[in-house]
């Protein structure tokens, strides 16, 4: 039963709604939950479902994504046989399309032709979930469908299971059929194929707007949600960093928060997701915030409903305030001074 599935991750998606967060990176590489990137969820799920060959199709700004994935070692995908494959798009420009772009696949058709795996799972890169794909494959084989679409509450999760040979045929005949991606095939009014659906019962959220990014991150603070996402025997893997444990100093007050390693906390933190290597100075109060890697918050700052991207420096005495509906997003690498508010 092992190694019958190919993993295919469409990392080309670009959501304009994510604004400033998308300036330096592809959506797949967006930091999430303190130490992960969005792609870690689907990639780890694939690895945990015995998938041994994963192809990633990136397009925009994929430097951060490549840096994150490296040789695939952290996912145990640095293999001699199979492993992790990276197929950047030959076209920088190009029309927007749904998940599973056939023209992009066509440029790398050899990968599909050479693969021994009978089935392929095509997925988006921006769903936060912890799912075992093996039951989907079992169902797909049992029902004899051509394509199985994974759904939650009747809504597509933009994940499709298909025979590799049929996928190759769809890629080859794309100009004749007019189907440009997997989404076209399953949503066709006169489907030429038998489409089935698989209803997923577990937790799954797709990150496509800043509001969604913010609320789904903070939802992780509910124990029943993080317990369904971080399972001991189905871990979510990510690039490891050699950060020391987080240090809480004398004045630290922390409630209801998720905190990654390498932080030094002297202030008050409430209802926050704090990434690796963040510093929060004495007298500062940080509430309802997402703080990304290596950002530094000085002394006596007040931050409420703010998303701080990586490497932001907030000078002492700064006030920053957004709202739950519309969090204040601070761009990567900027300096926020106290004077700007006066």
């Amino acid at each position, binding site marked *: 039963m092992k190694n019958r599935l190919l993993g295919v991750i469409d990392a080309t998606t670009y959501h304009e709604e994510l604004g400033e967060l998308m300036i330096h990176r592809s959506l797949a590489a967006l930091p999430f*939950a*303190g*130490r992960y990137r969005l792609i870690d969820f689907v990639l780890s799920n694939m690895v945990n479902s015995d998938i041994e060959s994963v192809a990633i199709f990136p397009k925009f700004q994929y430097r951060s994504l490549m840096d994150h994935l490296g040789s695939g070692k*952290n996912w145990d995908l640095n293999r001699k046989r199979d492993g992790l494959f990276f197929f950047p798009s030959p076209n920088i420009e190009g029309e927007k399309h749904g998940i599973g772009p056939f023209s992009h696949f066509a440029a790398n058709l050899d990968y599909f032709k050479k693969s021994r795996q009978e089935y392929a799972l095509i997925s988006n890169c921006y769903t936060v979930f912890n799912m075992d794909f093996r039951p989907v494959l079992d169902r797909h084989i049992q029902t004899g469908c051509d394509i199985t679409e994974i759904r939650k509450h009747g809504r597509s999760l933009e994940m499709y299971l298909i025979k590799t040979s049929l996928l190759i045929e769809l890629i080859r005949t794309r100009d004749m059929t007019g189907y440009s991606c997997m989404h076209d095939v399953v949503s066709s009014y006169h489907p030429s194929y038998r489409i089935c659906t698989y209803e997923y019962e577990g937790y799954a959220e797709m990150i496509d707007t800043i509001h969604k990014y913010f609320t789904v991150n903070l939802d992780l*603070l509910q*124990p029943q949600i*993080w317990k369904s*996402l*971080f399972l001991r025997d189905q*871990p*979510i*893997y*990510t690039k*490891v*960093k*050699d950060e*020391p*444990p*987080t*240090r*809480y*100093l*004398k004045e*630290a*007050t*922390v*409630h*209801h*928060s*998720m*905190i*990654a*390693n*390498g932080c*030094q906390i002297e202030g008050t933190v409430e209802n926050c*997701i*704090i990434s690796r290597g963040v510093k929060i100075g004495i007298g500062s109060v940080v509430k309802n915030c997402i703080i990304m890697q290596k950002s530094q918050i000085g002394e006596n700052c007040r931050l409420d409903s703010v998303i701080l991207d990586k490497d932001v420096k907030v000078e002492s005495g700064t006030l920053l305030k957004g709202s739950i509906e519309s969090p204040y997003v601070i761009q990567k690498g900027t300096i926020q001074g106290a004077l700007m508010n006066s």
Partner: protein
Amino acid sequence: MTQNLAKPAVPFGGKYRIIDFTLSNCTNSGIDTVGVLTQYQPLVLNSYIGIGSAWDLDRRNGGVTVLPPYSESSEVKWYTGTASAIYQNLNYLKQYEPEYVLVLSGDHIYKMNYELMLEYHIEKGADATISVIEVPWEEANRFGIMNTSDDMRIIQFEEKPTVPKNNLASMGIYIFNWKLLKEYLEIDALNPDSSHDFGKDIIPMLLEEKKHLFAYPFKGYWKDVGTVKSLWEANMDLLDEKCELNLFDYEWRIYSVNPNHPPQYISTEARVKCSLINEGCTVEGEVEKSVLFQGVMIGKGSLIRETVIMPNAKIGQNVFIEKAIIPTDMSIPDGMVIRGSEEKDKIVLVSNEMLQKFVS
């Protein structure tokens, strides 16, 4: 602790094992060929070191090699002393034919640039250089003491002297010229009365032969953790805001095998102060001046003070623990009270017998 675990493999600092410090020092000092001699309870240590990728020591040439005792024909040759351990692996050293050999202990906690020590060794034109640290005079009788001349040349070595003439203690870090080391290890191996130890046999022999031995003075944090109390103290040292052992120094990172855990979760009821907490912990109680390793859980209403909790231990609800070490994977039942005290020199290493007594 070392009964079931080689000392270098003992967990330390919320994330590390003691040998991480020596191995990271090697990597940070630009040393890419490291042999690790193991003997007692080597399973955990061997699998922990693996091929050395955690310390970037998985190299095509050199890298890390674990060197356990082996049998020559029918007789297994256990390492009887530090020198015999190296003597029996002369073949390992010969294949590299190095100019200098650095001999280290894997069970000390410190950060040191061995490259600077080597420069000192070359500059002094030494045959061997021994790193020393100043210790308080009243404790000098617990160490191997180097008596030196003004230019740091070693004139005499005294192991645990009753009346110390100096307070420079050997840190068990040696640089030797390889040819000289080889020669003297071979002489020592033939001596049936030798205990085959660097401090007791090789160094005195070199001094007798009037070789140029120099002391390299080291300043900074250095700790040899041989007892439950010193292990506890070393962990508490990290919580001191003025601690010289800075784990947050990105220029001199301490590398470690990184377990994969989600970020730590601090609940609404929790209170955390003056502590080091690693990934994968869930804190629902109160934690003060403590070190929590990965995967530790602290239940509601519990109070943990001045305690070290090793990986994946679970603390139930309404537990009180003060001045203790909780070993790996242990579960502390609800309502248990564990209290050590510093005055009586007592840090509690919680054992399964104590848990059984509490339950019954």
